[in-house]
């Protein structure tokens, strides 16, 4: 057992930190909820350093992986500093293309992703298919050399600035629902594709835009089918295990918690110092232990990741991280008295940022399958219990 980073891991971390110190600007940091040109440019610079294609063959634009945990260290440092992390483009799209797509498709798209040319949207969810992705109904009708799509998707987060959609569509309406879905790469400029804006809750200028995406007889060339027809659901699920792990670095939560502790240490309510108040102290202490547990579960996941995809550990990370995020978004406001209700202005700690976090904290509990889904994954895959949503399954005697 060795909890310390190796010298080469430390060296790489220093390299990342230096990059961040050099390239990070307020515009990059100040827009967690929106992808902006400065953020995209920042990622492109990482691409130039070979950090996006780490571990992929050089012929696809990849670069050697210095060691197994490099990508985690990179993401963790990015997350800690509020920079954009290496997320879905590499974790979901590039990985799936590399694993299942044709040589042609690999050559066309992987180098582009690793250079950060052209943004991507993950276009899965529909009004009746959220957590239950297998229920998606939006159809791609096989017309021989192309597929034709009429219908809609919603909650598509990067659609308003993307170049490509990584899209799941129903290709066989008669098959069992998990066996009739396929993945396509769809050009955002395709005729027949249109958008309608949906915003998350928040102050003006800080909200996260998502989109409804409408298709009216949109054509997708057959060459843009990813991997095999009707295997899409399995590709999605495989990617999800990895994504749950890759996207959920705990570092930003630790950083936010540290900021909150700092605030309570330094604020002075005309003589009343919260950091002298036994209840405030106890509450922060309790939360500190729970935040630390998050870093520990994350360590567990990354150590496992050196050997295999840490599906169960990633589910724990997700469940614990989202629960803790909610708990401390709540707690940090609760300890502030009426100031916790403020959403900006002179007396609002962090200029309303904590309120924003509070408002979206519940969202983290339900997003990407949600805490309850993660617990169900733990129950099934780690504890070996039958799926609660299946028919009753009597134990084998």
């Amino acid at each position, binding site marked *: 057992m060795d909890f310390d980073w190796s010298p080469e891991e430390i060296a790489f971390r220093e390299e990342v930190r230096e990059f961040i110190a050099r390239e990070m600007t307020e515009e990059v940091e100040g827009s967690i909820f929106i992808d902006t040109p400065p953020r995209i440019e920042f990622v492109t610079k990482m691409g130039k350093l070979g950090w996006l294609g780490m571990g992929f063959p050089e012929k696809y634009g990849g670069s050697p992986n210095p060691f197994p945990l490099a990508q985690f260290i990179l993401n963790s440092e990015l997350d800690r500093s509020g920079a954009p992390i290496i997320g879905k483009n590499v974790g979901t799209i590039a990985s799936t293309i590399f694993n299942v797509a044709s040589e042609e498709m690999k050559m066309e798209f992987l180098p582009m992703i690793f250079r950060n040319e052209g943004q991507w949207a993950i276009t899965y969810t529909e009004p009746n298919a959220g957590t239950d992705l297998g229920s998606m109904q939006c159809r791609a009708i096989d017309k021989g050399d192309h597929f034709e799509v009429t219908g809609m998707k919603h909650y598509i987060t990067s659609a308003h600035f993307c170049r490509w959609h990584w899209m799941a569509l129903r290709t066989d309406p008669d098959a069992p629902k998990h066996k009739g879905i396929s993945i396509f790469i769809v050009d955002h400029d395709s005729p027949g594709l249109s958008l309608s804006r949906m915003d998350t809750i928040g102050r003006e200028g800080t909200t996260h835009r998502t989109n409804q995406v409408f298709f009216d007889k949109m054509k997708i060339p057959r060459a843009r089918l990813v991997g095999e027809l009707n295997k899409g659901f399995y590709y999605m699920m495989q990617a999800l295990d990895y994504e749950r792990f890759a996207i959920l670095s705990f570092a930003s939560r630790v950083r936010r918690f540290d900021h909150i502790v700092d605030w309570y240490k330094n604020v002075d*309510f005309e003589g009343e110092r919260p950091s002298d108040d036994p209840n405030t102290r106890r509450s922060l202490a309790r939360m500190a232990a729970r935040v630390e547990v998050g870093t520990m579960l994350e360590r567990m996941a990354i150590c496992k990741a050196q050997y295999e995809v840490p599906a169960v550990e990633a589910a724990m990370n997700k469940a614990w991280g989202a629960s803790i995020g909610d708990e401390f978004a709540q707690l940090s406001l*609760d300890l*502030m008295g009426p100031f916790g*209700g403020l959403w900006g202005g002179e007396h609002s700690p962090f200029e309303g940022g904590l*309120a924003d976090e509070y408002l979206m904290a519940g969202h983290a*509990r339900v997003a990407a399958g949600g805490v309850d889904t993660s617990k169900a994954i733990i129950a099934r895959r780690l504890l070996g219990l039958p799926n609660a949503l299946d028919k009753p399954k009597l134990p084998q005697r």
Partner: protein
Amino acid sequence: MDIKLTEDQTQLQDIASKFMDNHCTFDFVRKMEKDEGFGFCPDMWKQFADMGWLGIIVPEEFGGMGMSTLDMVVLVREMGRHLCPSPYLFTSVLAADVIAQAGTRKQKAALLPEIVSGKTIYAFAYQEYSRFFKPEHIKLQAKRDGDNFILNGTKLFVEFAEGADTIVVAARTGKANSQSGLTLFLVDRNSTGISIKHMPTMSRDRHYQIDFNNVEIPTSARLGKQSKGWEALEPSLHKTVIAFCAYTNGAGFEMHGYATKYASERVQFGRPIGQMQTIQGYLAQMIMELYGADMLTMFSAFQIDKARHTRGYVAKAKAFSAETVGHVMDVSSQIFGGMGYMEEQDTTLFLRRGKQYQLALGGTEYWEDVIAEEIIDREPVVLT
């Protein structure tokens, strides 16, 4: 013992519910959030007056309806169900009650009918720069100067201050850092030296910081005895806090209803999500909490009407209602999944209010301290 509403209360509730259904729609609430006026609707205020609501607890001799705290609470709960934005609590509960209790005969005769008719709108300036809600923390100074008092200091979280005509101000005239030594004043909102600044909140309602810079007010503006302000204020404050509990409980019931309806209609994995044990557990837990908060609130109102010692009950009602409204808005939003966090979704009006309501008028922490004082430091009061 019987917790059924009386016929009159049922009628009041029905009228209020219908009025709110018609006039206080989600569109209306959103409009008031963005309102360039004062964040409430003067026409609606006029209608409140026409229905007698503004004087619901004002004694009949001053033109009011002379009804009970319990009656008032039934009405306010309906306002809460619809998130109705209005200066009702601080005008028709706090100001009306404290004037009726502490005012001189002359003040009552002059001021109460104007509350009832809707002519005067009140705001309440109490909270200062403190996490807590204690009278000890009030520092705004009122200094006697001949026939006047001079006010200096800052008040925070004064709701609807800009739309109000008169501000009830709790100021220090005596010993610092003490419950005693406070005096209440009725200050004209347009007095020289007052400057008002908006404090943005999650619910996009109208809270303000008021800076008092050598504000001169006549001694006749004093309400109640000098340096006995807390004694005058506390009972009215309790009544207001209980009304606020009713408001937040109403909002909680409404949100819970939306979440229950959604859970019974939203199908995932081949069944309504409301058929899943975890969702049922969330909804059942929340409805228990809401019933509990509601009963505690009603019970406190009843005890107030009986003029019994109710500080402990008020504190329990507020602490628990606060926790409940925060919890219900949070968990109910989660039941809606991603949709619960889209601006266009009407339930976000409730989510944005949950935590703020929880922390308003003294957060859980403050009222838990009061409960501790009541259960630990004083001998128990046996209620029949």
